[in-house]
């Protein structure tokens, strides 16, 4: 299972961005292709572990699964595959090895709020 090391990368990258922009992260939005080799459930589980003890603790990971899209050279069009076990055009049935989408593993957005600046405690 490599989802934990991937979850840790996600937390690191998100936190780096949060620090740069001086915000606190509530949620990380991720595009996850069905051919990425990463399992969504395992990643969600790992994300919680990866967040613990970091400023992202308690934040959510929102995964958008990206279907496999191929280019069918017969139809000359982009098609969405119904199954990752059958790389053939759903319309004309010809083999479609040309994968356009489905290998994504990228952070697309961060849901944030501005860091609360603690008001300086009035000194006497």
């Amino acid at each position, binding site marked *: 299972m490599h989802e934990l090391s991937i979850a840790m990368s996600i937390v690191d990258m998100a936190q780096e961005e949060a620090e740069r922009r001086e915000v606190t992260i509530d949620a990380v939005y991720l595009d996850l292709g069905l051919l990425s080799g990463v399992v969504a459930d395992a990643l969600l589980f790992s994300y919680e572990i990866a967040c613990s003890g970091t400023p992202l603790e308690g934040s959510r990971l929102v995964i958008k699964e990206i279907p496999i899209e191929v280019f069918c050279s017969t139809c000359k069009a982009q098609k969405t595959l119904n199954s990752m076990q*059958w790389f053939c055009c759903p319309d004309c049935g010809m083999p479609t090895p040309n994968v356009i989408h489905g290998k994504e593993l990228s952070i697309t*957005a961060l849901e944030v709020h501005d860091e*609360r600046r603690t008001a300086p405690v009035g000194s006497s």
Partner: protein
Amino acid sequence: MSAEPRLLEVRKNVLKQNDLVARALRERFRAQGTFVVSLVSSPGAGKTAFLEKTLTLLHPNYRVAALVGDLATENDAIRLARSQAPVKQITTGTLCHLEAAMVDHALNGWDIGQLDFLFIENVGNLVCPSSYDLGENLRLVLLSVTEGEDKPLKYPTIFNSADVAVITKMDLAEAVEFDEDSLMANIQAVRPGMRHFVVSAKTGAGLPEYLQFLAAQLAECSQKTPV
């Protein structure tokens, strides 16, 4: 300052770090004229026996070396060293796959320019290695005749990330009633057009075709001739 939640659009490839290292490796291999082949399979598919045979047969005519990833032992490196080729072990501990940085690190002290072929044997795993580019020119996915003809359907992602399929242990085909046509249909279903070789490291069957293919790939890649 407002504490209202808002959405920031970003675009960050999670594996960017690995991809950058892999790209640098690929560029280095290209500049040095080294053809790099990685091997992935489930544990026990016969990667090490196949690689030992490959190294032994290539060694007289080509300058070859291997990196071998393993969770704990150095047994594979010891076996491969019998081929007389330089071999280095990458012990990954609990990590289930190789990453580009491990390859980069393991190459320290080796003069890549002195190599025609570099082989990288990944950790036995048909899932995790698929996400990690190692900078290789060619990725072989191995599966043995004992594993079941439907393996490509169970692990379509690794077949999609590989370039060539190698069917191993053909000497056992009859005993396990291996159905070659069924396996080929399944490979083509998940990776149309995928090239394959059917071999036995034990008897040597099928290896000449595969070695010729490698030689042609090297020639195409670097225009180099055997030393």
